[in-house]
């Protein structure tokens, strides 16, 4: 593949614009990419994230019928044949009408063929609650995908990661799920380095320094966790906030090292607690024999469905206050 990547430059981009910039770059540097999904072609996406691709790249960006099995399945087939499809599932909730194509099909291609075939497709989706959203448009489903060997999964929370992770995902020779968040698309513009090298998968982001407790988090709630850390810092409690934008592969080592150092662990995610990936993080730290000064905690949505009414959803989706409160108790409570 010729090196068509432009020299890195810095641009002020919102999260949604960063995704868009990554898509433009990828379609330019990888002729085998295709971008498709419902409303992603001519309309440029319901969130405007695929804007301009159709104009720039013609048939390589297109709209599809409302047929998630056909979208995902065709992406598997095109990927097996050497394309790099980047398909969109408008809401992660909708993947459930076609999960077979992700779990039973895409995830098996390489392993079952003994490496003779591969499925380098990227599935972009977005998830989570937003004010007024109903139970069918609010779920955080990363834990489902993280239980499936053969899939890579990431959840960018900043414009820079929205750009970088997508570039890495599309360059990967394996199926990758990039879970974005619609409450971030139209956020503040930030400086984003575009056109840089393709980064390896994995790694963490240290979002706040501190030595009183380790907070592991991912996705848009990272911002709430950082707010909580800032609030607690003013009270003299120092949180080491580790964002893990890559969940598969997951950088267990860094998490364990931090937990060992701080002696306290909180995992924060928007998904409901039971069976969430927070359990996996806690289990890995416990399994590594880290001695904690207090039992680890998980901060997430309680195990209910998501109601549309904001007054109800508000008390379910963790916010900075609740995170701060629970982590404060973790730290102040001392060892049990």
């Amino acid at each position, binding site marked *: 593949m010729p090196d068509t990547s432009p020299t890195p430059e810095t641009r002020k981009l919102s999260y949604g614009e960063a995704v868009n910039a990554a898509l433009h770059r990828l379609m330019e540097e990888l002729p085998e990419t295709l971008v498709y999904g419902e409303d992603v072609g001519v309309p440029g996406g319901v969130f405007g994230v695929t804007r301009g691709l159709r104009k720039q790249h013609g048939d390589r960006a297109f709209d599809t019928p409302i047929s998630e099995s056909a979208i995902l399945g065709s992406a598997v087939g095109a990927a097996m044949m050497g394309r790099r499809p980047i398909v969109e599932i408008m809401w992660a909730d909708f993947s459930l*009408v076609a999960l077979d194509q992700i779990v039973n099909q895409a995830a098996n291609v390489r392993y079952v063929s003994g490496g003779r075939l591969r499925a380098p497709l990227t599935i972009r989706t977005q998830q989570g609650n937003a*004010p007024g959203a109903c139970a*069918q448009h609010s779920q955080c489903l990363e834990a489902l995908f993280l239980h499936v060997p053969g899939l890579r999964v990431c959840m960018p929370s900043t414009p820079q990661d929205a750009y970088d992770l997508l570039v890495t995902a599309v360059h990967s020779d394996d199926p990758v799920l990039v879970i974005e968040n619609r409450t971030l698309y139209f956020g503040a513009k930030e400086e984003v380095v575009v056109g840089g090298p393709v980064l390896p998968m994995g790694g963490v982001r240290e979002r706040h320094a501190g030595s009183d407790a380790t907070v592991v988090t991912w996705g848009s709630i990272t911002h709430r966790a950082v707010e909580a850390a800032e609030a607690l810092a003013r009270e003299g409690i120092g949180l080491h906030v580790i964002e893990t934008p890559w969940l598969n592969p997951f950088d267990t080592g860094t998490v364990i090292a931090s937990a060992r150092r701080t002696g306290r662990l909180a995992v924060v995610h928007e998904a409901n607690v039971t069976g969430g990936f927070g359990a996996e993080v806690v289990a890995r730290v416990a399994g590594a024999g880290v001695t904690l000064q207090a039992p680890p905690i998980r901060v997430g949505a309680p195990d209910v469905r998501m109601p549309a009414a904001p007054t*109800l959803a508000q008390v379910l989706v963790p916010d900075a206050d609740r995170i701060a409160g629970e982590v404060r108790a973790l730290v102040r409570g001392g060892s049990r």
Partner: protein
Amino acid sequence: MSERRLADLQAMWRIRAFEEKVRDLRAEGPIVGSVHLCIGQEAIAVGACDVLEPEDALFATYRGHGWAIARGVPLEPLFAELMGRANGVNGGRGGSAYFTAAEYGFHGENSIVGGGAPIACGAALAGRFDGSGRSAVTVFGDGAMNQGAVHEAMNFASAFDLPVVFICENNRYSELTPIADMVRGSRLADRAAAYGMPGHRIDGNDAESVRFHVRDALEIAREGGGPTLLECMTERLVGHYIGDAENYRRPGEMDRIRRREPIARLRQALLADGVPAGEIDAVEAGARAEIEAAAAAALTAPFADPATAREHLYA
């Protein structure tokens, strides 16, 4: 004739005025989140619900306010639902896109495209055993015709002769994408033949036509003849959701839609019948007054109580 037309007009105005009020309330703040209005499509719900029996079950989509209203769900609890109030039909849990009011034979919106079609089959199936004589109606858009679950539901209903009426509201767009670009051949009703069931493309902007065809389909269904697919041709006067920039509209498209839309058309027909303009306009005024009162009442209702947020997950 004029009497029925006036009744249809009134039913349609109640829906349109509701939707317009919802649009205002969404702009002003009391309603939050994604809202899909049915402005322009009112005749389908009005014609269909007129011939449904109380025991029949109706399954709609996120674009379901009009169906709920036509089914008789009271306006204040509907507004309250959209505003997240405690007295909403589901205490605010469903919201604009996913509420139910089974007491009124409205078995719910659905925010998964096509998700309601298999469920409607089950309601019809239940009727075979519970002695209710129930038929089921499931409503979805043109885009939903390409969803696997809808296909499975149509085959399931026809293989088992279930009393289901599949109502496809063909408003020519699946969100922002013309359905014509997403299928070969534009007559979705013809797909009924694949399942050996009757399928008709009908004028969805004429409540009387919808009434006729739904009644006919229900008769077939109740006699054990199984399902029917009705493709009701219509158009949105508004965007897919509130906030849709509608960039996909072609020149002249909105003019044409406005000329064909069901309320303007019925107004013309009533004038031609000789009904005085004042009487016609009074229908609108009456509906708007009713809507304003209901919205105002809902606005004073308490919000859903956070202390109840975890209730009702399990029996």
